[in-house]
């Protein structure tokens, strides 16, 4: 029994390693999830005026405003934009079906994929924080546990949405389109184009209930030194739970 458990574990380890190698071979994925968000941070951080508090952002700097947005951009890119087409392609090509004939269930492949995308995005988020703290004088989050909790909940919510898209997409092409369509409203309410601080009140209320709006809210609060607002954490948790449940119900393996 222990031998079987051990071999299962090593099979999952091998699966994660192989999928990680495949991820690394795909330049586009690395570019979008890791390289571009980091470059964006460096560009914003290098402009002196963007590091200073701005009246239009109610006293915080553009760097402060965009740091959580870029972290979330990386997570959203990985989980909502890249994960679903990959999984849909795996289904379309019969890779999940082939796996169903082996002792390792295809759900392990989903888990391995989600693990890789999340790890990449979380590492990028931490890297951003390190760069911002070390190079641009952004203070370390005074609420580190709150910060970590927020990031993990955002990861869970975006992964849930990504899995749901993968479940609903009839093909890899459709998965691509659906991801693309989901990405814009998600990132819009996160404040990628209009930071939340400058949003009209009504828009910000809507944003509070979207997963990434709530995400930016909680991350921003924890960086500023407060415990993240409970409402924001609950919104994230709700999205994560509902999306994951729906995905688990609707996912087709072939």
């Amino acid at each position, binding site marked *: 029994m222990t*031998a*079987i458990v051990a*071999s299962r574990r*090593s*099979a999952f380890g*091998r*699966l994660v390693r*192989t999928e990680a*190698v*495949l991820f690394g*071979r*795909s330049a586009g994925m690395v570019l979008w999830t890791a390289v571009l968000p980091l470059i964006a941070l460096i560009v914003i951080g290098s402009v002196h005026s963007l590091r200073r508090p701005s009246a239009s952002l109610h006293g915080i700097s553009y760097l402060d405003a965009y740091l959580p947005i870029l972290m979330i951009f990386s997570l959203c890119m990985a989980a909502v934009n890249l994960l679903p087409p990959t999984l849909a392609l*795996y289904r379309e*090509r*019969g*890779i999940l*079906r*082939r796996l*169903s*004939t*082996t*002792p*390792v269930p295809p759900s392990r492949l989903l888990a391995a994929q989600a693990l890789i995308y999340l790890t990449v995005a979380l590492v990028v988020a931490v890297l951003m924080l390190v760069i911002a703290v070390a190079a641009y004088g952004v203070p370390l989050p005074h609420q580190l546990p709150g910060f970590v909790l927020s990031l993990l909940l955002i990861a869970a919510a975006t992964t849930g949405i990504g899995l749901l898209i993968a479940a609903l997409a009839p093909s890899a092409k459709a998965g691509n389109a659906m991801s693309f369509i989901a990405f814009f409203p998600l990132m819009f309410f996160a404040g990628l184009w209009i930071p939340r601080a400058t949003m009209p009140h009504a828009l910000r209320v809507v944003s509070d209930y979207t997963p990434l709006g709530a995400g930016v809210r909680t991350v921003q609060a924890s960086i500023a030194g407060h415990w993240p607002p409970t409402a924001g954490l609950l919104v994230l948790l709700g999205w994560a739970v509902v999306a994951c449940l729906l995905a688990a119900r609707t996912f087709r393996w072939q």
Partner: protein
Amino acid sequence: MPIIEVDQLGKSYGRTVAVSDVSFSVEPGEIFGILGPNGAGKTTTVECLVGLRRRDGGRVRVLGVDPDVDRATVRSHVGVQLQQAELPERITVTEALRLYSSFYPQPADWRELLDALGLAGAARTQFGRLSGGQQQRLSIALALIGNPQVAVLDELTTGLDPAARRETWQLIEQVRDRGVTIVLVTHFMPEADHLCDRLAVIDRGTVVALDTPAGLVGRLDAGQRMRFRPSRPIDDALLTDLPEVWSVTRRGAEVIVDGDAELITAVTATLARAGVVAERLRVEQASLDDAFIAVTRHDTRSEEGSR
């Protein structure tokens, strides 16, 4: 004792009946063919065997267990090569083999398989850059990596050129010689004829014939045909008088004689007695193709009646 037993297997998708009554058994060490026209229910049948689909009715035992109940046993000891199951574009041959070998409790040595399947030269090539034949061989290798007792191979040589197809056939025979029982799904007659010890012909969800390839052909009352050029002119009556001969036709200098199973003996003896040599003699027999067409020929009236 049979290694696979299927008894009155049934499976529907909604209102569409894919398989209504399929029964057969496979003995250890056999190459067993499942033949049938497109959409006959072949793939559904094997999917029920390997635990990919739950059957609606009937009894199935693979290696003594019910694949719907004990999927773990079936997945560990039955290797499956599915139709249109690919691999990630960028995975190399070695990576795929190592990955899949980690899934099984007692895997085969993947280096050995690499050589046996002639993939050693492509070990570091990514899946997307392999030729069709190489992809197919890798797929077979993955079906064998778990050291299975049974290998199920669906549409093995579809899309392969004749040379690659012959090589694959040789390979399958080698696999069988190692003691692996093989279930081969195909709609390609020469393949079934060449490889299978026995076969089940499935048509519209039921088994319409279960026999050896030779037995299946022998069931046909198709008779034989001889073509030859007589060394000197002969009279048709010389041959039409024989009870074994059904008809004699001529095409230019060539004489075409149709008749029953004893045709060749009777005609050659008669010609010899008359002092005539049959030049450029060719004998044509009914093939598995003909037998297949005969058992799956659809009666249009009954088809309309069943709708």
